[in-house]
């Protein structure tokens, strides 16, 4: 068994993980007949600290009301709580308040951009003209995209007649930034900040520069970056960015779209209905300024409050420290897993431009079978294509096992993962029959 004692701990303040764990009620439960839960699936969804649960409950027990719709005391309090959450979340990513739109998840946020832009084709607002895309135009995505930043663009191309083009992935899990992909025909470049499978962090500034050179809009999938490291959308220079609350200690049911102010002001609406209008007449309607324009209907009020509390929690930990802690765990996992014969890491094998998602294969043991053995030891990992099917196809694998880490994970848990992998190998090699 490899010892993980050799893993370097990062310098600087580190997280008090014991104290953090005490904030997460779910982490003290057991699974499968009394095994302590080892939750290594935060890349899919994170757990929530008491502080977030309490903030949401407090709101619901004291100030719950429809926001922006009433003149009574509760409605004023609810509106304040909702908008204060927006301010804190905007500040968290270096954006202005008016640049943050609440959606139900990152998937909706990315669809919002894709539909908003295709709606420009039928909009009569001259400001929307800049978004018109049609046959002959191109949209560039990457082979490491999550389906959420890929399928909406396939469908966008179907609606507009534009063509989809791809940046490929190299054998070591980096983007192959072939300069011929982005051309004068490129109107949109949609790409991930951090791969949810490989952990790879992409060179955002470089891609933004390539896109800007041809006047294309950039759409960043920040689902796996914003929860795990300091992110400043203004500094990155992207036009749009999307992430989800449930992956960053916040509630499910809330996501965020960041859009540069000037662009949100020009983008046609997507979902339409109450609270996003300016004037409604029988023949036609006009629409409110952003962010209201993009928030039709009664919004995710308590969820915004919860996400605000999650951001407060992360700020208190310090995103630099969160990142350093995850680096420590990732380094341990990479080292521990590579020391196991028959295990192949998919993606970068060192910490350079890499976050804390570690995907791998075990020779002769199907990922689902391996995960079943891990699960039997209380270890929750994810298996499958992780909503990144083209990426798996590029690597010639059907599916993989992914461990992903967060603020509450420990080196002992990483060790348990490595031990669990060996147990899976033993289990399926029993009776001496090799597979």
């Amino acid at each position, binding site marked *: 068994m490899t010892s993980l004692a050799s893993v370097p701990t990062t310098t600087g303040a580190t997280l008090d993980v014991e104290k953090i764990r005490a904030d997460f009620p779910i982490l003290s439960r057991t699974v*499968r*007949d009394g095994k302590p839960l080892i939750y290594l699936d935060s890349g899919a969804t994170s757990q929530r600290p008491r502080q977030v649960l309490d903030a949401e409950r407090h709101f619901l027990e004291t100030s719950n009301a429809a926001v922006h719709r009433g003149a009574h005391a509760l409605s004023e309090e609810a509106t304040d709580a909702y908008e204060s959450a927006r301010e804190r979340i905007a500040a968290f990513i270096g954006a202005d308040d008016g640049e943050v739109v609440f959606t139900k998840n990152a998937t909706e946020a990315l669809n919002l951009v894709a539909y908003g832009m295709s709606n420009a084709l039928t909009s009569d607002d001259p400001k929307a003209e800049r978004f018109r895309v049609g046959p002959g135009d191109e949209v560039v995505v990457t082979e490491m995209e999550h389906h959420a930043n890929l399928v909406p663009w396939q469908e966008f191309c179907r609606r507009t007649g534009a063509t989809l083009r791809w940046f490929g992935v190299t054998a070591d899990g980096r983007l192959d930034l072939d300069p011929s992909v982005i051309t004068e025909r490129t109107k949109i470049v949609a790409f991930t900040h951090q791969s949810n499978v490989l952990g790879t962090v992409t060179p955002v500034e470089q891609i933004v520069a390539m896109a800007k050179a041809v006047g294309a809009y950039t759409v960043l999938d920040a689902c796996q970056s914003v929860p795990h490291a300091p992110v400043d959308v203004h500094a990155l220079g992207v036009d749009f960015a999307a992430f989800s609350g449930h992956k960053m200690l916040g509630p499910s049911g809330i996501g965020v779209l960041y859009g540069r102010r000037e662009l949100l002001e020009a983008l046609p609406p997507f979902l339409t209905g109450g609270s996003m209008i300016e004037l409604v007449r029988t023949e036609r309607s006009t629409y409110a300024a952003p962010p209201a324009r993009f928030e039709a209907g009664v919004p995710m009020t308590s969820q915004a409050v919860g996400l605000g509390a999650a951001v407060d929690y992360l700020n208190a930990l310090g995103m630099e420290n969160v990142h350093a802690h995850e680096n420590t765990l990732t380094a341990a996992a990479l080292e521990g897993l590579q020391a196991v014969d028959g295990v192949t890491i998919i993606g970068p094998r060192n910490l350079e431009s890499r976050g804390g998602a570690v995907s791998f294969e075990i020779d002769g043991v*199907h*990922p*689902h*079978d391996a995960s*079943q*053995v891990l699960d*039997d030891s209380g270890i929750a990992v994810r*298996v*499958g*294509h992780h909503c990144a*099917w083209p990426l*798996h196809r590029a690597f010639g694998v*059907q*599916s993989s096992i992914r461990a992903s880490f967060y603020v509450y994970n420990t080196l002992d848990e990483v060790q348990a993962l490595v031990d669990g992998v060996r147990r899976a190998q033993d*289990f*399926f090699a*029993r*009776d001496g*029959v090799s*597979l």
Partner: protein
Amino acid sequence: MKLESMYQEIILDHYKNPHGRGLREPYEAEVHHVNPTCGDEVTVRVHLEGSGADAKVVDLSYDSLGCSISQAATSVAYDLVVGRTVGEAFEVLAAYQEMVQGRGKVEADEDVLDDAVAFAGVAAYPARVKCALLGWLAFKDAVAQADENAPELEGQR
């Protein structure tokens, strides 16, 4: 221990030494099924003699990529349907499907299920039910494509 209750010896045996594997001729229909959650795939061909419930399953040949459960299930299916009538095969499938989807609440009928009773433990793991059914449902579709008089599967909705 629960893990062993799912991975019965008989399942691991079929997984390691699958019966009837490979795509063969002749066949009347070939279908390709994918499990969208894991990307695993199976291609199934059937060769029938006759039509309707009394048609005989002369061969079920297949090629597949997948987990132990799905591989073993297809191998067991081969054993249980080849040589029987479509009506009999569908009866086994109906009982099998009821068992694996039964959340552990359905009593397995060993007389009907034979070796397939080994998959009873899968019922406790909802995420693996699709694995246990992948090859079987491909077989069912192949029969439906091969013979327009194929019977309905019982208990389907």
